């Protein structure tokens, strides 16, 4: 049992170990054994505007998608958990749908939609940051809805009634009682929304405009011409960012209890 788990863990970690190792190779063409170790690829990233720009764009889009995703996902999850109505189940499935549609398909459809919308309205929708963010919101929503729903499932509604009987009107009850009580689910939803958006490649490829590329796309474009360890260094930074986010989140909520 534990050896199987060890094997699975190794299978997951091995590529990460190689990427991290590779990032410190001195030579430009990765080959084994390494001819020495260096920190220069990390410094090269800071000097490369495309990576820096890509990073900032990805960060901006991911934060915006996460926030909008929460603004939609939390009320949606509350609605699905609290009310019984005819369209409840179809609506629940619809909100999870972006998770099941392949990224390429989603990207293509959104691209066609943006083209048509640009023609129909005359507004600069195609390739805009707003359109990119909207696409990312779409892939964040299934995660926020799912994770917030999970924390609502174990929520005792009588604590809201208790707050009301103690004199709290509905809005006060929501912000002082309900929201803090489901905070673990919301924090987890924020984290996963961020990670999903930050790392998205397939769909984003169809949505970025000229001169505006997200980090994963920048990495892919760079790889088309060069295979020096810069990419590995970028990946290490990305792993560190997401890893740190997870560790910090875990301080507040036990992720293993929610996911």
């Amino acid at each position, binding site marked *: 049992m534990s050896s199987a788990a060890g094997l699975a863990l190794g299978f997951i970690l091995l590529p990460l170990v190689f990427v991290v190792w590779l990032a410190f190779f001195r030579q430009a063409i990765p080959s084994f054994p390494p001819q020495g170790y260096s920190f220069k690829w990390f410094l090269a990233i800071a000097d490369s505007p495309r990576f820096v720009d890509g990073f900032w764009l990805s960060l901006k889009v991911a934060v915006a998608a996460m926030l909008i995703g929460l603004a939609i996902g939390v009320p949606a999850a509350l609605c699905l958990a609290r009310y019984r109505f005819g369209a409840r189940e179809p609506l629940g499935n619809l909100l999870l749908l972006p998770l099941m549609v392949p990224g390429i398909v989603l990207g293509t459809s959104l691209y066609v939609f943006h083209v048509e919308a640009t023609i129909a309205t005359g507004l600069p929708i195609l390739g805009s940051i707003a359109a990119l963010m909207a696409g990312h919101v779409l892939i964040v929503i299934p995660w926020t809805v799912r994770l917030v729903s999970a924390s609502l499932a174990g929520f005792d509604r*009588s604590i809201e*009634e*208790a707050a*009301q*009987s*103690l*004199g*709290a009107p509905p809005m006060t009850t929501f912000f002082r*009682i309900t929201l803090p009580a489901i905070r673990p689910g919301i924090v987890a939803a924020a984290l996963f929304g961020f990670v999903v958006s930050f790392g998205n490649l397939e769909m984003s490829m169809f949505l970025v405009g000229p001169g505006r590329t997200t980090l994963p796309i920048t990495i892919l474009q760079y790889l088309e011409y060069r295979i020096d360890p810069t990419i590995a260094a970028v990946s290490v930074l990305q792993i560190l960012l997401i890893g740190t986010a997870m560790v910090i989140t875990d301080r507040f909520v036990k992720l293993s209890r929610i996911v």
Partner: protein
Amino acid sequence: MARLELEGLSKHFGPTVAVREVSLHVRDGEFVVLLGPSGCGKTTTLRMIAGFIAPTAGRVCLDGADVTARPPWKRNAGMVFQSYALFPHLTVAENVAFGLEMRKVARAEIAPRIAEALRLVRLDGLSERLPRQLSGGQQQRVALARALVIRPDVLLLDEPLSNLDAKLRETVRVEIRELQHDLGITTVMVTHDQEEALIMADRLVVMSEGSVRQVGSQRDLYERPADSFVAGFVGRSNLLPGTVIGPGRFRTEGGMSIVCVDGAPGPGVIALRPERLVLGAASAGLDNRVSGTVELVSYLGSSIDVHVRVSPADRVVVSQPNRADGALPSQGDTIDVGWPAAAAVVLTGERGGAGT
């Protein structure tokens, strides 16, 4: 603290009637228990008093003021929930403080009132704990302190003891009763546990299928049950269906003739408490005396139940105190069963049903 009046309170959920025209006057400082099996409408009634459910018809009045249309947060009713419903992310002190903050009580006054409330429920020293760090009994007391600290007009208790283990329940029910009595706070409690109800209440309201069956003291319900439901639900009763054939005369469906005190002529049910029946020679001279066959003897420790077939259609349970010198009848014995006329309560105008 206040009077509570319910007037013709009804609640319909679609075609189902959950509560049917409940009227009840609770005096200032009185402890009233709504007692009944699950689904009898007692919790729905309590929730209408709290304001969580809007009645289909009728009124809820607190100290003469109609509060029917007021939402829960404007009613000043302190409620203790079955699950305690403590705020999981707040400490004990913050839980208790919540109602005071909602009432905009001055900061300087909040701390002493929390301390007082926690001392009342003997939880001083635990104010910085989170609910999950407390035992079930302690959580229950926090819930009580939180409901009391706001000095509610009425205290509502929704099966407050059902999540405690049996031993703890016995002490807590006495504590709650004494606290309620000392504070003189008008209280309505809901329970399905008749023992709990009998111990805690000033007055009981027995409900079944959405309707009030009887309102009265413990003695009223036990000695003069209004119908066979009450007779069977509060304590145990032998229910013998039959007909009142004349003043003080009843004939069971099994053909037995019984002397009783009252009862309007017509179909009815005789209710006999098992401990009012007497076996053997001791039954001599009583108004009613019949001979029967012992079918079952159950040894219960402090008492012994003897099931006696007294006619082809009628069987009664006789509860005998367990005395050192008492010789037990055995199965198949022929034995006399007797009882005074006053022990037979006639319930008229209904079918027999519930009972032992």
